[in-house]
């Protein structure tokens, strides 16, 4: 029986979202106060749960497989930490960044609702419950993408809405097939049923549906069309959340969980994931190279970096999965850092076009340093965190005799470096545009958030050994041990 913090990680954000809307009718700064406090509470829970024993929480006291069950294991712990850490930093950043927007309370309510949905997806042990929380997070994010209500934002939001709904429908079809075959939607119960039966084409079809649905939410390549529109259009804190954690919490994490813990990782699906990853890594980076819109460029890099994660998952070896989880963690750190610093640059200069920036190094030293840190991390320059996770993925690929994947991963890393050298050259170095003579450094709160994320990027890189041993290797072993998951949920 796990701690009561599990349901509270979902319940407190839900409560806070309603309170922001209710109190916000009378007091317009309610959101700016409540949102950081809520995310701080859930972050404290997430850090506290890192040391907790693995266990389950029965909602309403109903034992599984009859009731809804929340599961805490070493994989959920990682994701819970990532989601709540980025959410806290993004909400603190938003207090300063969102000043120029109207209807701020609606923004904070949607933001917190998205957090509740993601925490729910990460913690739940029930397929249909996963679908419900995934829809909460997705629908909140559709609204947040269109929050600027300009032509471009609404178009991106609508595109995301249509494609996201198709993905959700596919997931529902997959869940329906699984329920029809096994008579249960509890993940561990389904896993127990699946592990004892011969290969079944209907289950593979359901798994393909899941791959379609979660692949679209994760932005893997054949399904990536919405991502480069949606992620740049949102306000910067939301871009950081979408690119930093949403595509992982409702895309990659459920894909890993269902492939490994529920279906026991059939080889054909692992190969599919691996090659989707290889294609995503290459296509994403080539599309990014030609971009001059700073946020759009970063959005394409999200596609490419998710490709790395998919390569690691598709290998199916303990090192590969641990490296993929580590890269997911690192990507959350440096991509949210990059999007937040891009937001600072954008709100200072009023443009997202790299060609109109230049020489901002002198005017905005902290933001520039943060952009440089993020760029070096994502490009995989030692000693930043991106280097170690990419290196581990390449080593894992070589050890699994997937030489093509390893070669592609190394090659893409080079192109990423080229692409981010371009970002730094156009935005930070060079001659300062005359109209930016009076430019000031971003407000204190934004600068503090950028500094914290930069330090984390460097710190995780320097102590990567500690993080791998204490967090990611146990998580990978837990994922590969299907029997342990079943006995923990059904037996405990």
């Amino acid at each position, binding site marked *: 029986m796990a701690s009561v913090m599990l349901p509270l990680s979902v319940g407190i954000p839900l*409560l806070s979202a*309603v309170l922001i809307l209710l109190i916000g009718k009378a007091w317009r700064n309610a959101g700016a106060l409540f949102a950081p406090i809520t995310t701080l509470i859930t972050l404290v829970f997430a850090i506290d749960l890192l040391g907790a024993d693995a266990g389950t929480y*029965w909602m309403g006291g109903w034992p599984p497989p009859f009731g809804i069950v929340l599961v805490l294991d070493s994989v959920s712990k990682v994701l819970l930490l990532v989601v709540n850490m980025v959410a806290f930093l993004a909400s603190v950043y938003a207090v300063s960044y969102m000043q120029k927007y109207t209807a701020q309370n609606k923004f904070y309510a949607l933001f917190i609702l998205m957090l509740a949905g993601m925490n729910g997806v990460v913690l739940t042990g029930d397929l249909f419950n996963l679908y419900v929380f995934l829809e909460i997070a997705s629908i909140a994010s559709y609204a947040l993408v269109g929050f600027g209500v300009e032509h471009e934002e609404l178009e991106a939001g609508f595109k995301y809405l249509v494609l996201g709904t198709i993905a959700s429908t596919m997931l529902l079809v997959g869940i329906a097939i699984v329920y029809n075959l096994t008579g249960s939607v509890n993940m561990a119960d389904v896993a127990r049923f699946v592990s004892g039966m011969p290969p079944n084409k209907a289950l593979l079809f359901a798994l393909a549906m899941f791959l379609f649905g979660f692949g679209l939410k994760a932005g893997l390549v054949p399904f990536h069309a919405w991502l480069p529109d949606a992620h740049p259009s949102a306000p910067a804190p939301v871009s950081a959340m979408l690119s930093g954690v949403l595509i992982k919490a409702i895309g990659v994490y459920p894909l890993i969980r269902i492939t490994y813990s529920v279906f026991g990782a059939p080889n054909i699906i692992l190969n599919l994931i691996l090659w989707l990853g290889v294609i995503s890594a290459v296509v994403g980076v080539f599309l990014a190279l030609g971009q001059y819109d700073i946020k759009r460029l970063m959005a394409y890099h999200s596609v490419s970096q998710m490709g790395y994660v998919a390569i690691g998952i598709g290998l199916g070896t303990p090192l590969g999965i641990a490296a993929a989880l580590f890269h997911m963690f690192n990507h959350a750190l440096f991509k949210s850092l990059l999007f937040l610093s891009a937001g600072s640059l954008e709100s200072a200069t009023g443009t997202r076009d790299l060609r109109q920036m230049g020489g901002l190094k002198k005017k905005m030293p902290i933001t520039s340093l943060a952009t440089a840190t993020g760029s070096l991390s994502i490009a995989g320059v030692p000693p930043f965190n991106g280097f170690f996770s990419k290196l581990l993925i390449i080593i894992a690929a070589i050890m699994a005799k997937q030489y093509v994947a390893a070669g592609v991963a190394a090659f893409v890393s080079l192109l990423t470096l080229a692409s981010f050298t371009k970002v730094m050259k156009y935005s930070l170095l060079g001659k300062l545009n005359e109209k930016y003579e009076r430019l000031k450094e971003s407000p204190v709160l934004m600068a503090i958030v950028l500094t914290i994320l930069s330090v984390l990027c460097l710190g995780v890189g320097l102590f990567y050994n500690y993080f791998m041993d204490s967090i990611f290797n146990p998580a990978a072993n837990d994922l590969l041990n299907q029997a342990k998951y079943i006995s923990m949920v059904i037996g405990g």
Partner: protein
Amino acid sequence: MKQKDIEQIIHDDHTGMSLIVKTVARMMIAVIILFAFYIILYGHLTPGGGFAGGVILAIAYTLMMLAFSRKMALHKFSDFWASFWDNIGMLAFIILGFLGLNSGYFLYNFIWHGKPFHLVSAGIIPLANIAIGVKVGACLYAIFIGLSIYGRLIIKEEE
């Protein structure tokens, strides 16, 4: 809006739909709302429940908006109060969940369950149904108000 204005909307052929629709709608709206309450309150005994009843509740106000006019519907139930009750419904449900923690589990059915098949039975389920009914009814009506705003703007452009 005064009683005189309401009378005028009801008898004016140019606002809302025709007199036949208006007359039938006037009789039906109260019955529809009553039926919505029945579906919500008997949710734990008969098919239906909070969501279905809430949808019916929203339909009653939507019918009012279609038959009479947007002005009339907003006079009876304004967008501010729709949003307010929307939040109250959700808040009530979450608080029910938190109250369960007192007895050991989130969303635990902590009230005396009563005799099966009686109106007062099943613990927190009827309360949860009422909360969902309020939430869904107000929320769907608020969505319809939102859609009607966009409709008006498009007509203006065409003129």
